């Protein structure tokens, strides 16, 4: 399985008044046509890593990497026009809250068609057809109706499905999902995950699933990367997460309350400064 995405020693440094912040430190991983989960708490650098891969960080950020390649294309030092050709076409991103990531003044149909208009030569009739097909693919029951709606008329789950439709309509190679279900109710989460599951599998895409929720990541993804303080603490198969070796991962797993395992006291994480050395 050839690597879709190769990341080697990725570093992201934010300039700041009181000095620089190294948000991502020497992060390395490869991704094939599989699902990789990146798990971490706030400040771990997981979202920043995702955005670095898409070139979505502010210009003042310093991004360095020994290797950052998408199917053979070097992502380092791309110009803005070159990034625009990639984004929405070969790499897409689904974000957390459709309330903030969908354009409130454009209809659903318009937004789903937008990536098509930007990247392909296509008639508006054909674009509409594909948009409706995509809405069906994300299991929206009445695509013609939803096509005309505006984001504020959608529920959280529907909004997220619209977002997925919009991001997958151009059949990208890689999808980065940054907390895609965190703003959703628990019963809706699984529906959305099921749709994502099917679409990713059908299209043979690579998926990076960024989340703070260990339970979801370990049940949805194939492999898991655990991040802390900008560094990768552990990389393992999702199925083997319970046998994790790094103390941070073990502590994190032990600190989550579980419905089927009552515990008198939850484990807490004693942060060892050696982890960040």
């Amino acid at each position, binding site marked *: 399985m050839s690597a879709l995405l190769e990341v080697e020693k990725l570093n992201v440094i934010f300039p700041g008044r009181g000095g620089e912040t190294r948000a991502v430190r020497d992060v390395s991983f490869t991704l094939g046509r599989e699902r990789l989960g990146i798990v971490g*708490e*706030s400040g771990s650098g997981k979202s920043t890593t995702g955005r670095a891969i898409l070139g979505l960080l502010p210009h003042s950020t310093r991004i360095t990497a020994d290797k950052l390649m998408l199917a053979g294309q070097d992502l380092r030092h791309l110009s803005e026009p070159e990034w625009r050709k990639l984004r929405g076409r070969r790499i897409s991103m689904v974000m957390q809250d459709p309330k903030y990531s969908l354009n409130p003044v454009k209809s659903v149909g318009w937004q789903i068609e937008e990536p098509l208009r930007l990247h392909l030569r296509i008639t508006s009739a054909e674009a509409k057809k594909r948009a409706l097909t995509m809405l069906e693919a994300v299991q929206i029951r009445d695509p013609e109706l939803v096509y005309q709606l505006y984001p504020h008329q959608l529920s*959280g789950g529907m909004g997220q499905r619209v977002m997925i439709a919009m991001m997958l309509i151009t059949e990208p190679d890689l999808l980065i999902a940054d907390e895609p279900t965190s703003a959703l*109710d*628990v*019963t809706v*989460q*699984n529906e959305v*995950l*099921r749709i994502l*599951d099917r679409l990713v599998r059908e299209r043979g895409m690579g998926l990076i699933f960024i989340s*703070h929720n*260990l*339970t*979801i990541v*370990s*049940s*949805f993804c194939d492999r898991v990367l655990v991040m802390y303080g900008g560094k990768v603490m552990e990389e393992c198969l999702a199925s083997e997460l319970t046998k994790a070796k790094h103390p941070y991962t073990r*502590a*994190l797993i032990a*600190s*989550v*309350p*579980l*419905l*089927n395992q*009552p*515990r*008198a*006291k*939850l*484990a*807490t*994480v004693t942060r060892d400064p050696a982890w960040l050395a």
Partner: protein
Amino acid sequence: MASMITVEDLRVTFTSAGRPFRAVDGVSFAVEKGETFGIVGESGSGKSTILKAIAGLIPFEAGKLELAGERVTEARSRPQRRLLQYVFQDPYGSLHPRQTVDDALREPLLVQGLPRADETIAAALSDVGLELKHRFRYPHQLSGGQRQRVAIARALILEPPILLLDEPTSALDVSVQAEILNLLAALRKARGTTSILVSHDLAVVAHLCEHVAVMRGGKLVEILSTPALREGRVQRPYTRQLVAASEGYAQQS
């Protein structure tokens, strides 16, 4: 023996876009002294609204609302305020941005006219695991977990017999959540407070509570004991759905 908290036919109506909307529709339950009662539900289920009504923060109608044997309405007298305190969900919004931790803890003592504020404050800080060096910090100089500890200290400083907790750990990282849950469990054990804990997270509720009420669309779906919940002895399909969803994603075969 009368319950500590008795809620009978609680109704809360909001007006949305000119039309009335029942956020809480005839909910009844009782909480015994020293018990921690959980209310679980998704967004819009009315779970937080119930808490706000019991606290007297919003208008409500009820067949009966009794706290510590006393019938209460929305209007509460100053002494009645000592019956019940509240921990809010958002640690970033529940502390006054221009007041130090000391100010925040002193205010309830001043309002209620309690003496020996300095000692009480020092004790409250150590009870929630904060150190002296945090005492005169401003909220923006504290982490989310620390702010929530201050919020808990503030709620407990008046030693209320009843504590209402509205998603106290939802905005916190998993490791910080564990610390706060442990703290809440320890405090409950030490003080015997009667609490109602609201959350969307079944596991969190099961961890701290003896009984759980499931809410959906303003109505009470069922009330079950935590052991029953853990063993899957649930009666209503919606509850079963919630339990299944909380176990993570099930790959379709």
